[in-house]
């Protein structure tokens, strides 16, 4: 018997608050998933519900083959538990020396995590999160605070995940990893747009660059900068 494939199924899951509501159904299988949606549409609420940290108002969430899971919150300071950067790494069970070298923050070992710039703290947080493999990895706005080069590096790192479910909740439109499936929240409902590139035709939050490339007769195969560049090359010949 092999290891069962991980999956998480939302069965008429709902969250209701005053006049705002969110309902979600669908199965997230192994691979990289993108969930897009407008500000306040419920991306973070959905992430919290999938992480088991926020009880749905209705419906249920079924998990299979998931023994380890992690939710990365949009604001990295919410994760800080130690008074030094080295202590923060240790709190995640990772070797500070190794990880700080890798992300260019070796000189900050004794600094307070909250004294670092927001980009540095986000880099530290994501490096700690991504140092381990999880069956279910939920990344809520992982690209916020990162500069363009760091976003590209994060995309590559996410692309190296060989197993498990990775769900990215974001409004980022330009620098994204190659994804297996695209979802979006529209009018309070989670919609499964399908797999790229077919998903582009009915994806409300399709990045403008994809719309423009498609109009130029060069629809990209997926949503990463490499896919965009490949499409640009097709235009330029």
């Amino acid at each position, binding site marked *: 018997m092999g290891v069962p494939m991980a999956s998480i199924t939302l069965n008429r899951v709902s969250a209701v608050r005053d006049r705002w509501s969110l309902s979600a159904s669908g199965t997230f299988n192994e691979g990289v998933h993108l969930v897009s949606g407008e500000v306040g549409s419920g991306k*973070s609420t959905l992430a919290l519900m999938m992480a088991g940290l926020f009880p749905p108002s209705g419906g249920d969430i079924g998990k299979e083959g998931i023994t380890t899971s992690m939710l990365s919150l949009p604001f990295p300071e919410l994760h800080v538990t130690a008074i030094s950067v080295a202590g923060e790494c240790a709190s995640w069970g990772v070797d500070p020396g190794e990880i700080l070298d890798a992300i260019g923050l070796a000189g900050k070992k004794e600094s307070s995590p909250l004294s670092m710039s927001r980009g*540095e703290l986000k880099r530290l947080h994501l490096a700690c999160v991504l140092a381990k493999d999880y069956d279910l990895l939920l990344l809520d706005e992982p690209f916020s605070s990162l500069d363009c080069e760091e976003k590209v590096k994060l995309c590559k790192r996410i692309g190296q995940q060989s197993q498990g479910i990775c769900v990215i909740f974001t409004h980022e439109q330009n620098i994204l990893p190659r994804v297996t499936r695209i979802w979006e929240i529209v009018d309070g409902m989670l919609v499964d747009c399908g797999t790229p590139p077919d998903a582009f035709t009915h994806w409300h939050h399709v990045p403008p660059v994809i719309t423009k490339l498609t109009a130029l007769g060069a629809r990209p195969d997926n949503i990463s900068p490499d896919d965009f560049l490949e499409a640009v090359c097709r235009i330029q010949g």
Partner: protein
Amino acid sequence: MITAEFLCYRNLAIDALTIKPGITTIIGANGSGKTTFLKLCAGIAVPDSGSLMIDDAPPRETEIGWVNEFPDRNILFVNVFDEIASPLRFRRIRCNEIDSNVHACAEAMGITHLLKRAVGELSGGEKVLVSLAAALVHHPEVLVLDEYDSHLDARALATIEQGIRTSGADYIIRCTQQMDTAINSDYLLFFDAGRITHAGTPDHVFPFLKGTAYYPVLWGCRWPASP
């Protein structure tokens, strides 16, 4: 004009810089000095040496609107209406005038539905919209926006773009990691390790960034001429 001369502060050093009225966007890596420069423009920090003047006055004698990427750090009040009203209340403006200004500003930002909500319940993006409304409600001469867009979707960004362009602020100085936003600027500054290495219109600056993560994907094949 905003002028900087022999400006030094922490890792930032600018020998000479002139910024004309309009939208100036700063791009560059984390730690390159973007936020430091914005803090100097907003008067939150003062130079160690040299000067930065806005129309011949120091920033601290100028009406400034400031929005931080992490609005929680600046939000003072529990509910949205009170937060947006606060700059006007601090100026002891009449209550009925405050009410109408807050409502007009909230409407422009598309957040009228949030006015009675507690700020703590809002999403990250909604908090940015509230902060922006609070920064604009007193009609600043200079609007300083520090990576305000990193928690916003395309629709909210379009609303904000419209909001800042019609704000009446003479100078809008912002930093962003969204090159789609940077394209729509009058003036672009590229920061690298505390220095401005490229300055000019987007047409002038972007060609220097070819091959980097800051080069807009479609810059090389724009169609027809850019709007």
